[in-house]
C-alpha cells in the first residue's frame, strides 16, 4: 500500500498570505485527492489532481484560491491563497491504495493543521 508524506504538519499563518502544502507518495499513483476538514466537520473534497492535466475542482472550490500542482506521479502540492481565518482547517491529501479493482481503499496523509490569524 502507498505511504504518503505530507508537510508541513501544522502552521500558523497571517491573513492575506499563502501556504503551500506538499504530498509525496512512495509509489506512482494516477490520481491524488485533496480534502479539507474544518473543525467539527467531515472531510470535504477540494479537488482531484491528475498528473499532466489541470486539477478538477469540486463545487465551492476554485483554482485561484486553491491552486494545485501535479508535476509527476508521486508528488502534488496544494496552495491555500490569500488566507483568511475561515481557511483554518486540516488539509489532507489522499491516494488510492491500489490499482486492483478489488482494492478501493484510500490512504491518507497525516494532514496539515492550518491556523490563520
Amino acid at each position: 500500500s502507498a505511504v504518503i508524506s505530507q508537510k508541513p504538519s501544522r502552521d500558523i499563518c497571517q491573513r492575506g498570505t499563502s501556504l503551500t502544502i506538499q504530498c509525496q507518495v512512495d509509489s506512482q499513483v494516477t490520481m491524488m485527492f485533496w480534502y479539507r476538514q474544518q473543525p467539527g466537520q467531515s472531510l470535504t473534497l477540494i479537488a482531484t489532481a491528475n498528473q499532466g492535466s489541470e486539477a478538477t475542482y469540486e463545487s465551492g472550490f476554485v483554482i485561484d484560491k486553491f491552486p494545485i500542482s501535479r508535476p509527476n506521479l508521486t508528488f502534488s502540492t496544494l496552495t491555500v491563497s490569500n488566507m483568511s481565518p475561515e481557511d483554518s482547517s486540516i488539509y489532507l491529501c489522499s491516494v488510492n491504495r491500489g490499482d486492483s479493482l478489488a482494492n478501493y481503499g484510500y490512504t491518507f496523509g497525516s494532514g496539515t493543521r492550518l491556523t490563520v490569524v
Partner: protein
Amino acid sequence: AQRVTQPEKLLSVFKGAPVELKCNYSYSGSPELFWYVQYSRQRLQLLLRHISRESIKGFTADLNKGETSFHLKKPFAQEEDSAMYYCALRAGGYQKVTFGTGTKLQVIP
C-alpha cells in the same frame, strides 16, 4: 449526488457492550461503502470495505441496499476501539469518495 449520513456525533458504550455505528447513504447507482477510523493522534485509515465482506478488529458491516445502510458493528467493545469513525461512499466508476460527518466512539472502562 451521493450523500452519507451518520446520525450520531458521539456514541458512548461500556467496555464489553455491543457497538453499532449507524450509516445511511443516498445514491441512485451501485455504491461502494467503506468505514474509516481515526485514532487519537493518528492519521485516517481504512477499517473495512463492503466489497470484501471482511471482519477487521472484530468489526463487521453489511451493506443493506433495501435500507440504504452500512452500519458498523462489533459484539464486544474494547477500550482501544475509542476513535472517530467515518462512513464513506464511492460512486461506482468514479474515484471520488464522499464522507459522512463522523461518529466519535467512546468506550468507557
